[in-house]
């Protein structure tokens, strides 16, 4: 026979557990809030600086003012942006990102569907080869890519189509995540649809893609983000020609030694402008994005 425990002792123990859980939760939240503040500081500073209208000692110098909160607020920096090459850079970036996003998404999804659903000779060898190839840094190909694009006349002011080509070229190798997700969709669904009268393409568009919505959104977002924020390739291929620059390269140009004093607050305004569309995209699609990132691993 087990001894009956004293109810008061049980209650005390229960209360003790509750209290310790509350304390540990409080500690966790305090730490998380501190980390969030630290993480947000640079963003807040950039937004504040972009809204600062006054200049140092009334001169043209816009940086190293020694304080964070503007003394005079306004949208002058944003307005001034549009009197520079910024709209061109923005448009370049937008065109590149949209084209890359569409082409890369189509290639990745087709590639993933093929590798997930079809069995053909050399399939596993091809996957292994792409995996190994993907381990090499893309930068290694930079020189030769520049040479090829220069010969094709796709550099400097014609850098936009050149950059689209560069970003799209190795799209097929980004199949891992979506193939993993497609693998979790039972093959009997494809088979049922094929018996029901669907072609392979109809199976992909009517069955697989609607079921793989999170991974499609993940693919679209990553395909859009990569060229949107790229600096290295873009700077190489635009080669200091303002007409061929994207926002990252253009804004970075304002950070050069002779430009920063006059353009620092405009640089901040540009940074905010760059972040806006991506932030909106992420806010709208974050639910799917998280599902997409984790989906392939855990979806049963």
């Amino acid at each position: 026979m087990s001894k009956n425990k004293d109810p008061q002792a049980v209650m005390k123990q229960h209360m003790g557990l509750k209290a310790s859980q509350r304390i540990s939760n409080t500690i966790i939240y305090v730490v998380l809030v501190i980390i969030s503040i630290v993480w947000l500081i640079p963003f807040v500073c950039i937004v504040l600086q972009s809204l600062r209208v006054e200049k140092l000692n009334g001169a043209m110098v816009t940086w190293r003012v020694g304080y964070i909160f503007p003394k005079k607020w306004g949208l002058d920096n944003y307005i001034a942006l549009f009197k520079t090459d910024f709209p061109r850079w923005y448009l370049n970036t937008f065109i590149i990102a949209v084209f890359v996003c569409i082409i890369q998404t189509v290639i990745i999804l087709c590639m993933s569907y093929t590798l997930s659903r079809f069995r053909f000779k050399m399939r596993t060898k091809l996957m292994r080869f792409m995996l190994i190839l993907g381990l090499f840094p893309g930068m290694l190909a930079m020189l030769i890519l520049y040479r090829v694009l220069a010969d094709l006349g796709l550099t400097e002011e014609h850098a936009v189509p050149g950059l689209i080509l560069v970003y799209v070229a190795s799209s097929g190798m980004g199949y891992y995540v979506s193939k993993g997700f497609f693998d979790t969709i039972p093959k009997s669904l494809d088979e049922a649809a094929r018996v029901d009268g669907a072609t392979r393409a109809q199976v992909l568009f009517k069955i697989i893609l609607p079921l793989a919505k999170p991974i499609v959104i993940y693919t679209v977002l990553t395909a859009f983000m990569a060229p949107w924020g790229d600096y290295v390739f873009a700077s190489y291929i635009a080669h200091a020609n303002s007409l061929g620059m994207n926002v990252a390269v253009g804004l970075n140009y304002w950070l050069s030694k002779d430009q920063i004093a006059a353009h620092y607050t405009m640089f901040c305004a540009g940074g905010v402008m760059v972040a806006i569309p991506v932030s909106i995209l992420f806010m709208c699609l974050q639910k799917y994005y998280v599902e997409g990132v984790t989906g392939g691993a855990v979806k049963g």
Partner: protein
Amino acid sequence: MASVKLTKVKKIYDNKVEVVHGFDLDIKDKEFVVFVGPSGCGKSTTLRMIAGLEEISAGTVEIDGVVVNDMQPKDRNIAMVFQNYALYPHMTVYDNIAFSLRLQKMPEDQIYEKVTNAAEILGITEYLMRKPRALSGGQRQRVAIGRAMVRESKVFLMDEPLSNLDAKLRNQMRAEIILLRKKLDTTFIYVTHDQTEAMTLADRIVIMKDGYIMQVGTPAECFDMPANLFVAEFIGAPKMNIIKTKLVKENGKYYVTPFGAKIEVTGEKGAELAKRGVEPGEVLLGVRPEHITLAKPGEGIATRLEVNEMMGSELHLHVYTEDETRLIVRVPTISLTKEQREGMTYGAPLNITFEGKVMHFFDPETEKNLLCD
């Protein structure tokens, strides 16, 4: 409605493994044929070759006289129900059933009529606007059947459609499939590993093992005259008892001598042995558990009880003989007194016997039924 003919159909995978070895079968129009066999016997592969979901390595498959080897599944005019239902999770029940009709570009009003008709027959009308995840296993299976029904195909293929259901629901759905078959009046090819399903549903059973057909016949034929040892053990539950013994012939009569007893082979079996002039010698004697009866103490074959399974209306008694041969005896509960039932505990002595007319004889080497062609 259509006939299906398989001629020397083979399936050889890329790694050269042959899983179906020259399958020959003629399925008549409106016939209900069940492929049955243990896991890995090639029954599902054969069905999938008929459906067009597996490439046919050799031989031909004809549906309604047309060779369909190189046709896509959609062009074969078949409908299929899958083991795991394969419902489209992002579509409602209505859209699932309507999917194939929409692909045919059928007008929406006709689709509506067909879908609601099918739903009414299957009793799923109230679930039409639900997604599959909000349905129970039985309801999902009905939707899968409904999806196949509306196609009005020539051949209805079913790949272990009941194996994901619990025992009670399986029995219920089995009865519903029999009714559905009457309503649809089309050719059915059904795959299962459950011999009860095969026996209850089929016009003809195709029993398979390791990619070979072991026997094709009506359920009664397969049960009463199993072509070989495998079929004998596979069909019937609990499985047939197999006893290694001798067949002897005295004064024109045949006897078997299991465990020291001497039992005359009587009835049709005895006559058939004589007609065929079967030579006496070693045989594998098959006796179904339900054909063994309990004998009085001192009579028949002496055994001891090892396990007593109470099945409700009957007892399954696992007994062992003096030479440690295990046998199963099926006894109706009603035939025993309360004292007899209570006395059936581990080690209890039990005498058993069986009649000569219920025996099956198999060649110990070829394992073929000695009375089968």
